[in-house]
């Protein structure tokens, strides 16, 4: 009934008119939709975006497989538990993401990001090979390292494989290049100076680290174990390796020294100095059963012989709790 009871009614005509208006709107909607996705608009498409050898379309599959949208938003849609990911790649760059994603439970340190820059494909994509230049080019990565580096995140570690990490970064590179009509709005004020910003490290901490370096430079004898502990934290080792027996991304270090362990090929090996040294310099040579090869990067370019020995000494000192 398109009219109140008792009133003269032109039922059929009213219904036809409503359908006609609806039809016009549907045509308008379809026309606007077609205009939204034609090539000449110049919107970036994922099949055109590559990161290293990784494909952004495959990256979207990884993004959906892990239901990233359930905690984060992308183009503003999704969960509101973590930050929006749309423009993240453009802000922090590929090396920071490479350092972060495999061990998401912990914020990357400067050493961890520097390590990723050793990879030529990453450096080529970032456009800079030097860590200082990188941090200058990506101030958001610098801010993250300075304020959060080494601390725990609110995100759990995910079992991402090496290639999944690469694909995800390719997808984030694609979304970062998307034209989203000015969203999210660019802040007009430096939020870090506001009382809402957590006042961590900052200038005071920088001074401390300078003196720390000065102490090391002045060649005061520091025990190998203490030096190894410091190196392990600076280089981001402890983002993936707990100092007790807990498995984070890699095996926990607690009590592993000297123990027999089975490798992926079925043979067994004793975790002695030689094995641990090799695992730091060439991690894929002898991978323990149950762990993915290719997740841990090589530290051959980052650490010299003495530094590796110090880290091994530190691992030796750890007892499993």
């Amino acid at each position, binding site marked *: 009934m*398109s009219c109140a009871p008792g009133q003269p009614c032109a039922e059929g005509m009213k219904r036809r008119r409503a359908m006609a208006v609806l039809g016009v709107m549907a045509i308008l909607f379809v026309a*606007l939709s077609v205009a939204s996705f034609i090539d000449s608009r110049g919107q970036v498409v994922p099949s055109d975006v590559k990161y290293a050898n990784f494909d952004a379309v495959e990256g979207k*599959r990884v993004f959906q497989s892990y*239901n990233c*949208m359930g905690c984060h938003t992308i*183009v503003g849609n999704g969960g509101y538990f973590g930050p*929006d990911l749309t423009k993240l790649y453009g802000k922090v760059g590929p090396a920071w993401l490479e350092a972060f994603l495999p061990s998401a439970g912990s914020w990357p340190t400067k050493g961890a990001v520097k390590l990723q820059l050793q990879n030529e494909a990453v450096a080529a994509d970032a456009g800079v090979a030097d860590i200082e230049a990188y941090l200058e080019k990506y101030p958001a990565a610098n801010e993250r390292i300075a304020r959060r580096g080494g601390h725990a995140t609110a995100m759990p570690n995910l079992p991402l494989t090496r290639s999944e990490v690469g694909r995800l970064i390719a997808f984030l590179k694609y979304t970062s290049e998307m034209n989203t009509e000015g969203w999210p709005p*660019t802040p007009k*004020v430096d939020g870090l100076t506001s009382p809402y910003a957590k006042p961590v490290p900052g200038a005071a901490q920088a001074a401390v680290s300078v003196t720390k370096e000065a102490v090391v430079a002045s060649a005061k004898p520091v025990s190998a174990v203490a030096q190894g502990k410091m190196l392990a934290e600076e280089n981001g080792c402890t983002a993936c390796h707990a100092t007790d027996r807990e498995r984070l991304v890699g095996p926990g270090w607690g009590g592993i020294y000297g123990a027999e362990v089975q490798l992926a090929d079925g043979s067994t090996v004793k975790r002695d100095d030689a094995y641990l040294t090799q695992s730091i310099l060439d991690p894929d040579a002898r991978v323990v059963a149950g762990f993915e090869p290719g997740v841990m990067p090589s530290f051959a370019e980052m650490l010299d012989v003495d530094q590796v020995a110090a880290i091994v000494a530190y691992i030796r000192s750890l007892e499993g709790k």
Partner: protein
Amino acid sequence: MIPIEYETQRLGLRFFLVMLVLFFFQTVFGLMLATQHVDPTLLAGILNFNVIRSQHTNLAVLWVLSGFIGTILFVGPLLSKRELAAPWLIKFLFYALIAVVIWNVITQVLAQQGIAGWWMGQPLLQEGLEYLEAGRIADVVILIGFGILCYVVLRTFPPRSQWNEIHWGLGLGVVALTAVWIFGMFFVERLDLSEYFRWYVVHYWVEGVWEVIHISLVGFLLVLMFKADVKSVGYAVFWGVSLVWLSGLLGNAHHYFWIGTPEFWQFWGALFSALEPVPLIFCFWHIYLDAHQDGKPLENTPAFSFLLGSVVLEQVGAGILGFTMTFALTNVWSHGTWVTVSHAHLALFGTFGMLGIAAAYYAIPLMRGVSNFDQRLGKLAFWLVFTGMLGLGFAFAIGGTVQVFVYRTLGLDWFGGDVAPAMHFAKVMVPVFGIVFAIGVLLLVYDLLTLGWRVPAEHDSAEIPAPSGWGRRLSSWETGLWLLAMWFFGGLITLGLLSFNLASVQQGNPTLPYVLGGIGYPGLLLTTLLFVWRFLRSLDARRYVRAEPLAAASSLAGAA
């Protein structure tokens, strides 16, 4: 109370019971999410936030659908004046629903391992798209289920020449429900295109299909409860459905502001979705008119309370809060924050959830043959659930306003270090109101599951309010004032969101949006609470009229 006329109406009962069980678990998952927001390390790595959230949203969709199916099966024979076609298909649908719920609950957990079950380019097990997290296998089963529902409804209805507007609304509703679902069944490579089609399902379900089913069912329940004239309800249904589709079709554009689609959507989206409250105001007005067309006392207060809650929260959550963030200049701030969560909870649970509960409260006593059930538990449950949900809406909105300022205006993006601590007060309020809500849910689930098994109370001992003061007759003039007050506060909220565009706010001074939001949100939600209280009290007082006609007549004369 009308007796059950057709045996197959009873098939609705099992869907109502499933609805209650799923509603309970959805609430539990919601409480877990609220707790994780306060302490993100809780269960991290064991049951991650994204998995719990997908359970929470998927169960919401599934129990609302269960409620719709239950209600449609209950009213279908009454609308058709004959038994349901193919009852064996309904029984099959019931087991398919249970199977798909269990299957989906299990497969969602696989997201923690990144397993989606890719086969021929399609994710078979789960697909990590908000609201459409179910994998392709579940999608296909759900599509078959919708097909069965369409078949049964259309075969049961009389020939099309005899359809009235309620038949049209429900018939179009179930067909569109099925058709729109298909757009969510493909993997799309481009993010903009994939979001574009995702909103086909989410928006057109909610603002196209569900709304139409909602209007039709509310209309018919009013016919049943108040013996309202089918023709005048049909008139409301016709215009309601027309306005929903005329505004909602292009209104979908408000989801296309920032997903990588062109700027012109901002114009079309703002224009048409600003019109979306019109059919909701229309619906709101009609529940007032129909409830007041005769002065008879309410027979089933819980059922009507939830029906009123459904229409009022539709007005407040979908209509007003939706309106506040429908303009590009407000949406650019609210988008992707808790401000939208407030709208989503009030609109989705309010409109569709409360309708399912209302229908269950109406139908279950009839199906169990309970003519005089104790309504006190149901009334209490209504008030707990209603205030709990308003409180949740308040907490989300306040948290969202702070979030917009800290996250967008100041650009601080460390959720654990900066954003979450700033929102802490609101984050704690969520589980607090969540517990109030959950107690209400427990009560109503218990009440409805065991209704008829318990010995009914001797008499309703609640005092009957006098038809004066808050119990006096609700005039259309007064109802209009209440509605105006709600929109006034809605206007403040809109201005608050707009004020984020001011240079002073962008320079780091949040006073204006905080003050406007701080008055607007509590103002709106308290007005809503008081209005529903006033409405129900005036209906309660009708029994006083019957009990003491002389006294009532004199007080009515006094009021006039």
